């Protein structure tokens, strides 16, 4: 069952995975290009500050790439089912739970491919730079975080894609409603409850989502390939 679903998902997404793997492998290399030996100086350990600060400007690309690939994997996982009105799945002698679990695991397996690409790229990038004392590279940690981010985005959108359009519309409407009411309603509430004068509902919700134990905390942690 698992193998069949993996093969099916692979057929659906293989062409999209090629650029994903290339991007995952190339991004660390792209970020460190020209670092470690500025101006062709033989003293490669010149600018620790420059290395870290320049790298920091582009660190958001790692979670962004993970989110993008996770989304592609998740949406492609259910594409085939939606296209043929779930006839194939319903004809199988398995429960919904087993089917979803196998499909989820198949997607996780495919997510390992771009994560492996990033792991390899991060190692090659680490070997290509000569760092000053005090700085280190973290290719393994970065790859693990990348994998978790891929899994999370895949899991979230997998849940969305598995549901009906009505469910998706309800959830998205809820999000939009929260944004609108959280922005406009806060001032109104502050008139009645002093608590809301100092507390912004939307900000508080966002903070809850991106800080531990919120679901998106993996996206907001340290993504540095080179750090102290």
């Amino acid at each position, binding site marked *: 069952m698992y193998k069949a679903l993996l093969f099916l998902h692979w057929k659906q997404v293989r062409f999209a995975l090629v650029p994903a793997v290339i991007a995952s492998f190339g991004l660390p290399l792209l970020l460190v290009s020209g670092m470690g030996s500025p101006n062709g100086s033989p003293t490669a350990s010149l600018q*620790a500050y420059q290395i870290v600060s320049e790298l920091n400007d582009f660190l958001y690309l790692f979670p962004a790439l993970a989110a993008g690939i996770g989304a592609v994997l998740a949406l492609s996982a259910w594409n085939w089912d939606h296209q043929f009105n779930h006839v194939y799945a319903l004809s199988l002698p398995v429960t919904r*739970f087993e089917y979803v679990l196998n499909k989820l695991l198949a997607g996780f397996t495919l997510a390992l491919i771009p994560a492996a690409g990033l792991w390899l790229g991060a190692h090659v990038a680490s070997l290509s730079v000569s760092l000053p004392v005090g700085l280190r590279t973290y290719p393994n940690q970065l790859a693990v975080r990348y994998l978790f981010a891929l*899994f999370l985005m895949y899991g979230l959108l997998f849940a969305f894609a598995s549901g009906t359009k009505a469910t998706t519309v309800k959830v998205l409407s809820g999000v939009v409603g929260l944004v609108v009411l959280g922005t406009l309603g806060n001032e109104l509430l502050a008139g009645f409850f002093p608590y809301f004068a100092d507390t912004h509902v939307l900000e508080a919700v966002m903070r809850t989502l991106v800080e531990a134990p919120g679901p998106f905390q993996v996206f907001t942690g340290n993504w540095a390939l080179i750090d*102290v």
Partner: protein
Amino acid sequence: MSRRFWPVLALGLFATAAPVRAQMPEEESVQERMTRLWSHIDSLAPLVEEAKAARDARNARVEDVRRIVAAESAAVDTLAIGLLTVITPVGQVEVARDIFSEVWTEHFADIDRSPAASDARFVFQWSDELHPIYVEPGRYRAGIEQSETVDRDKIVQMVRDAISTVLYYDLTNPYTVDGVPQPRSLPMWTGNNPLADRDWADTYRSAALTRSIAARDCLAGDAAACASAMGLDVEIAEGDPGVWLAPVFGPERGLPRVGADRIATWYSPAERRERVRALGATAWKIDDRQWESCLQDADQAMCDSVLRLAGGLAIPFDGEVRSSLVAYALERGGYGAWSRLTLDPTHTPTEALEYASGVAVDDLVDGWMERVLEARPVSYGSLVPHGALTLLWIAFFGALAARSTRWRLG
């Protein structure tokens, strides 16, 4: 308009201007003008005295109003906690005592004497209804006045910040010689408050990101390089650092006065060129020839000269790192170290640190280096618990997917 109008107008204007030109004095030099104005300065004294008296009278009236309003507004109590005097509304005595005692015991218990803290009044209110609280004039008023929506941790942090700010005045207050205020060399050297909330991992980060060969040697375990990068023995020109002030006060304010040999131990040739590049071609007192000579011809003497002229020379370790050495000295010195550090304003930074810590400066820097290296931050340290949490969320999303109503079977 008549054709005769313009010549007549021009003649009229010339006739009007001629007497004015004749009345103008001979051009006066700046020095002469200063001397002339200086000789008349006494005439301003009565006006100044009158203005001062008016100001004092106004301030006295404002103080009266404040005192009356405060007296009618709320009953207050005065607490003595450590060296601090805290004024708070009667209803908040317990909470003020709790928070101030906690902060004092945890962070400042080794301080045995502080003129600044004894002189200051800490006004504490943590309530939705804030009252005007009167503090007698001439005393420093450190206010921690927040609404109840602010959580306790933030209030504790504010109290800590307020106390360390007040205590820092012990270090920065100038002393006088023959009535003339003199700056203290220790605060000019540290730049930052050593009593402020400190994360040693941040200190390590600042040290690791310092663009200096001496700093890198320090992190590699060379204590002598640490001492050099600290610039403890370096004379610093009086004033606040800031290149933007250079056109007004000269570029050397707040910056070290050092020779070429010291510069060479601080910065590699490439780093010196980078510093010059960072100053920009339009920096004060730099001309194109100097700029090109340093950056294109790699003339090190010219780079050093440009750095001095344009204020680009700085002690490698920044105020964050330097003040951490003072914090470490206080830690080593234990009880009474703060008063020893601040007691003699004429002490050089090295003397003050040795006196406060009770150890020679070399040993102090050795210990500091070990402390900083131990504090190296662990990047990705929280990955394991965060990873486990992420897996839990993924399991939750998977469960949501399994419960979809699209299927009616199974």
